C-alpha cells in the first residue's frame, strides 16, 4: 500500500533523448559527429577499394558538382520544381486525407465501409500506380503530383483517425454536460483534440511523399532533383548523382526543420503532451 502510493507520487525520471550537453564542444560533437563519421567512412572506403571517381567520387567533388549545377542554372530550376510539386501534392492530400480521416474517425459506418478499402490501397505502393497514371495522364506534371499525393494520403488519413479516436471520452462528456451540442463536440473537442496526431500524420506523409517525388521524377523526365540524378547516371556524372543525393537529404531536412517540425512542436507543446 505504502509502496504503491510512493510509486504513484514519484515523478518518472526524464529520459534523455538528446544529450543536453552544457559545453559547446559537447554540443558540437553531437551535432557534427555522426556526419563526420559517415564522411570518413565514405572517404576511407574509396581509398581502401582504390575506387575511381566514376564509381565512387569524393565528397568534395560532389560539393563541386553542386556548385556547377548551381552556376549553370539547373539547380534552382529543379529545386523549384520539386518543391512546387510537393507543395501542391501536400495541399491536396492534406485536405482530402484530413476530411476522410475525420469522417471515418467519427462515424462507425463510414469506418466499416471505407477502412478496409483504404487499408487495401495502402498496401499498393504509390510507384505501382505510376504505369496506370502514365496511361491516364501521360508524361505530365499531373502524374508526378498524383503519385506524390497517393503516398502522402495514407499516413494523413490513418493518423487523423487515430487522433479522433484517442480524444479522451471525458473531454466529450465534459462538453456535453456543459450543454454542448453535437457540433460543439465535433468542432470544440474532436477536431482540436485530433490536431497533434493530424500534424504528425502530415509530417510523416510529407516524408513519404518526398520519396515518391524523387522516384516519379526519375521516371518522368520533367525536371526536378530526382530527374537530375537519373539524368546524371545516363551522362556518367557520378559526382552529380552523389550531389543530388546529398541535396535530397538536405532539402528534406530543411523542410522538416523549418516547416513541419515547428508545426508539430507548436501543437504538441500547447496541447500539453510534453512537459517543459
Amino acid at each position, binding site marked *: 500500500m505504502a509502496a504503491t502510493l510512493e510509486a504513484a507520487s514519484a515523478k518518472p525520471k526524464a529520459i534523455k533523448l538528446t544529450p543536453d550537453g552544457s559545453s559547446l564542444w559537447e554540443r558540437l560533437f553531437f551535432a557534427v559527429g555522426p556526419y563526420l563519421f559517415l564522411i570518413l567512412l565514405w572517404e576511407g572506403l574509396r581509398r581502401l577499394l582504390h575506387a575511381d571517381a566514376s564509381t565512387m567520387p569524393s565528397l568534395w567533388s560532389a560539393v563541386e558538382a553542386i556548385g*556547377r549545377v548551381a*552556376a*549553370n*542554372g*539547373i539547380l534552382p*530550376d529543379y529545386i523549384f520544381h520539386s518543391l512546387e510539386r510537393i507543395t501542391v501534392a501536400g495541399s491536396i492530400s492534406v485536405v482530402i486525407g484530413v476530411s476522410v480521416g475525420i469522417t471515418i474517425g467519427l462515424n462507425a459506418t463510414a469506418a466499416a465501409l471505407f477502412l478496409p478499402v483504404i487499408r487495401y490501397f495502402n498496401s499498393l505502393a504509390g510507384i505501382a500506380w505510376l504505369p496506370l497514371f502514365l496511361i491516364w495522364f501521360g508524361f505530365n506534371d499531373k502524374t508526378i503530383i498524383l503519385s506524390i499525393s497517393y503516398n502522402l494520403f495514407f499516413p494523413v488519413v490513418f493518423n487523423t483517425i487515430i487522433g479522433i479516436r484517442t480524444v479522451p471520452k471525458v473531454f466529450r462528456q465534459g462538453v456535453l454536460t456543459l450543454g454542448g451540442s453535437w457540433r460543439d463536440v465535433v468542432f470544440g473537442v474532436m477536431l482540436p483534440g485530433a490536431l497533434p496526431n493530424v500534424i504528425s500524420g502530415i509530417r510523416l506523409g510529407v516524408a513519404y511523399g518526398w520519396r515518391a517525388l524523387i522516384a516519379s521524377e526519375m521516371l518522368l523526365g520533367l*525536371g526536378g532533383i530526382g530527374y537530375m540524378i537519373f*539524368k546524371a547516371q545516363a*551522362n556518367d556524372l557520378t559526382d552529380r548523382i552523389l550531389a543530388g543525393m546529398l541535396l535530397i537529404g538536405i532539402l528534406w531536412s530543411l523542410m522538416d*526543420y*523549418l*516547416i513541419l517540425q*515547428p508545426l508539430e512542436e507548436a501543437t504538441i507543446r500547447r496541447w500539453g503532451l510534453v512537459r517543459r
Partner: protein
Amino acid sequence: MPAMLKSLIRHRTFLSLVTLVVLWGGFTAFQQVIAPSRLDPALRQAMTKEETIGRIAVDLSFTPEDFHINYLQQYGVVAGVSGKTIFLVQVPRNEVRQLSELYWIKSIRLADQ
C-alpha cells in the same frame, strides 16, 4: 498578442524564409540591373528597330546540356549548338530581354543569318 507576434518574428521559420526571400529578391534585382551588359551593342541596336530578332547566339560559360537547350526552346527555335553557344532563331525582342536577365547566360549577340 504582441508576445506571440514577437516570438513568431524570432522564429527560425520566419527568419529563414525572410532571409531566403531577401537574398533571392536581391539576386534577381541585381540580374535585372546588369542584364543590358549581357547584350551585344549590335543586338541592342537591332532590338530598337525590329520586333523579332532573326537569329541570336547565346553564349554560356559552360557546355550546354539538355536542360539549357530545352530551356531556351521556350524563347525561340533552337537552330544549333556549337561549343558553348546556342543559336536561336525568331526570338521576339522582349524575350531577348528576358533571356538577358538569366544569371547563367554570359552574353547574347546577333548571329549571322
